[in-house]
């Protein structure tokens, strides 16, 4: 079930009312969360439920075993990790590796008759697998006691707002919330509604409109000049941000309605002043996951420069692969790893306060320059990410980094309407300005401190009108495929 679907519009109020008004006991509430999440997830394809329940059951049993047999904890956790990753690899990477080997061997004149599987990639498999893995590892490390409450554990893994596209929650943060009584809090619920509204603005107005424009330009890149290609890259940059951070806002807002706090997943990434800062602000839950469960265990930054560089590359390579089974994602991951290493070597990665320019209305010239350079590098990365193949990415970049980059965009061979182009650019500016103004709050458009209710409601209704007038065609969330 998509957040931006009619079904969800019906589903959410029903679940909310049952959850708070009818099922008041914590155990029944948790059971209801599991049932509601199964309906939500099974709406795509009921067969997906089998896989998620295998993951839930396996992680639950192995974690109890780790608690019971601490001597064998490492082996049991290892088995759990291997099985979960094998399921992930089977559905997500088997065809990719088989095809890649086929191509490799064909270069040497060998034709391999590999089989490829016609399997459907379960929605959000990477997200819930990583969440389940983090639980097992945390239990093994002793960060959390294994829970005996299967229903609470199933609710933790399958909690519908964050099931298919995160944030990837830590067991230490989310599981205890399912083990204790939740109390309805008016302020939190209203805050959640605001965040949902803002998430829809990002998704329906920014991402869906940018998606149409970016698709037109990326599909017809061969006949576009440099400036139009740059515009296409810019649209995809905001498409992916609006899409994913919009999803996160809707997920976090929805969770607040149920008295559950989820972690922040995006923190104004396009205002970052260096690449490391960008990765501290973009998809925060995944990056923290990789730092805690990959980067630090393999040595982190403690074992000398060379080992640190290797570790950074490993993390970004895995992060790239996590995003999808395509060489473009692998190269995108390596590209980001190399950038971080370069910044590190040049001493440009700095520890920066979480809030950018906290005491100024606008950033300083130096900060603007840093933001511009970082943003440009990120945009280049998104071109690789968006391209259908490496050849596509190279062709796109070649066409873009050309003298025609400073010429007027040629719209002759792409089907783009001038009106949509203009209002999409205007809304991108609105997004950036609003997020900048509200940068000290939990999310853009946090009007909780505005004293006038009339003004607040006027703004909310204006957003509803904007959503109805300017929404693009319904697009699925990009990150579902990961």
């Amino acid at each position, binding site marked *: 079930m998509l957040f*931006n679907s009619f079904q969800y519009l019906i589903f959410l109020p029903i679940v909310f009312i049952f959850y708070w008004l009818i099922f008041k006991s914590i155990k029944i509430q948790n059971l209801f969360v599991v049932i509601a999440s199964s309906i939500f997830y099974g709406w795509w394809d009921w067969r997906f439920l089998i896989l998620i329940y295998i993951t839930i059951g396996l992680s639950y049993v192995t974690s109890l075993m780790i608690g019971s047999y601490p001597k064998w904890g490492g082996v049991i956790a290892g088995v759990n990790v291997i099985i979960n990753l094998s399921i992930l690899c089977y559905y997500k990477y088997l065809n990719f590796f088989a095809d890649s080997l086929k191509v490799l061997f064909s270069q040497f004149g060998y034709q391999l008759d590999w089989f490829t599987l016609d399997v459907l990639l379960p929605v959000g498999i990477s997200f819930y697998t990583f969440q389940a893995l983090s639980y097992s590892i945390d239990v093994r490390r002793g960060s959390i006691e294994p829970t005996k409450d299967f229903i609470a554990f199933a609710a933790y893994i399958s909690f519908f707002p964050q099931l298919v596209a995160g944030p990837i929650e830590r067991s230490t943060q989310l599981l205890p919330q399912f083990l204790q009584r939740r109390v309805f809090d008016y302020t939190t619920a209203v805050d959640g509604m605001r965040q949902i509204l803002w998430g829809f603005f990002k998704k329906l107005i920014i991402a869906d409109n940018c998606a149409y424009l970016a698709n037109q330009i990326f599909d017809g890149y061969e006949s576009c000049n440099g400036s139009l290609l740059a515009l296409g890259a810019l649209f995809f940059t905001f498409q992916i941000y609006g899409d994913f951070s919009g999803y996160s806002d809707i997920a976090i807002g929805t969770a607040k309605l149920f008295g559950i706090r989820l972690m922040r997943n995006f923190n104004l990434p396009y205002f970052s002043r260096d690449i490391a800062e960008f990765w501290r602000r973009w998809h925060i839950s995944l990056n923290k996951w990789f730092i805690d469960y990959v980067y630090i265990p393999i040595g982190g930054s403690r074992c000398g420069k060379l080992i640190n560089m290797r570790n950074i590359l490993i993390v970004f390579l895995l992060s790239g692969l996590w995003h999808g089974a395509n060489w473009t994602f692998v190269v995108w991951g390596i590209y980001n790893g190399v950038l971080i290493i370069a910044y590190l070597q040049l001493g440009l990665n700095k520890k920066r306060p979480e809030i950018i320019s906290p005491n100024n209305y606008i950033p300083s010239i130096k900060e603007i320059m840093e933001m511009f350079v970082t943003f440009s590098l990120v945009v280049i990365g998104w071109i690789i990410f968006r391209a259908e193949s490496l050849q596509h990415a190279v062709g796109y970049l070649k066409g873009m980094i050309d003298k025609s980059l400073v010429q007027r965009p040629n719209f002759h061979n792409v089907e783009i309407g001038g009106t949509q182009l203009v209002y999409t650019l205007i809304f991108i500016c609105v997004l950036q300005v609003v997020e900048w103004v509200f940068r000290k709050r939990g999310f853009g458009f946090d009007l909780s401190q505005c004293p006038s209710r009339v003004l607040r409601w006027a703004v909310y209704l204006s957003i509803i009108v904007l959503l109805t*007038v300017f929404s693009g065609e319904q697009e699925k969330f990009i990150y579902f495929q990961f």
Partner: protein
Amino acid sequence: MKLFILRSLLFVVCSITVLLAMWIPYVISADKCMKINNNQHILFLGNSHIECSIDDRIVNDSFNFARGGERLECAYNKLKLLTEKNIGIIDTVYMSYDYMFLTTSTDSVPPPSYYYSPWLMSQNTLTDWLKIFTLSSVDYSFGHFSHLYVYWKYMDMLSFLRTEDSIVKNKYLGGYLYLKRDKLDEAIRRRKSNPTISIDKIDRLNLYFLDRIVDYCKKNGIVLCFITPPQHKLAPENMVLCHQLHSERYGDIPLLDFRYMELPDSCFGDLDHLNYRGAKFFSEYLEKKVIHKNNYPSNKENEGIKE
């Protein structure tokens, strides 16, 4: 909790009120903005195949009101609306008749947002709605409401308030699309790498609305013809089902099948859409040899167009 629910309901009511108020300009303007010229008595309806193939500036006295992604529900509503707002003007309708338009291949796709113009949606009767919900997929039927207000695009509103013939000028609801696309090579590559085509069935909802169109035309004395624009020779063979349906059910309605008409590659935007060059050739052909001469060649009699 009660306060939260009450205020949420109040907010929903306010939102609905504001959104309903947005219908007013449509209601006020429906009469004037749906007007077509008095000489436009030939109407073309259908999906992107018609939208891109027939240049109504070339085919005299015609109006191409087709739109990409359209299904027969929408075509039927357009037909009703235009004939009601332009009494006695439209006397002939050429309706797209091809695989994409008739089969279930588009049923799982939520309809494009322009479907939900109140002009079009309001044409559905209760029976139509019942059929929509019983004969189509959840995505399609509920999709009507998930996009309920998405239609209300900025420029459309401004343009229809400003001009009288905005529907003709503003092609949001349909109109000839000057297709600049030149992706035939890419489409051929894709087709060759994936030669199988999924075999769909004739869609029951489309069939229901096709019957409604046939009845409507009969009742109102409108001549109805089915038309299949040219497609590239490498496009999937997909007319068998359509021909079968035609001979079994609509034998008395002429079918102008140009599916296999020979056209040079430069006329195609991709495998199943003509680009502007193809549209020019095809429209001139229709104008000179078919439309005004009631000369309806069968598939085998198509003489083709050489560059």
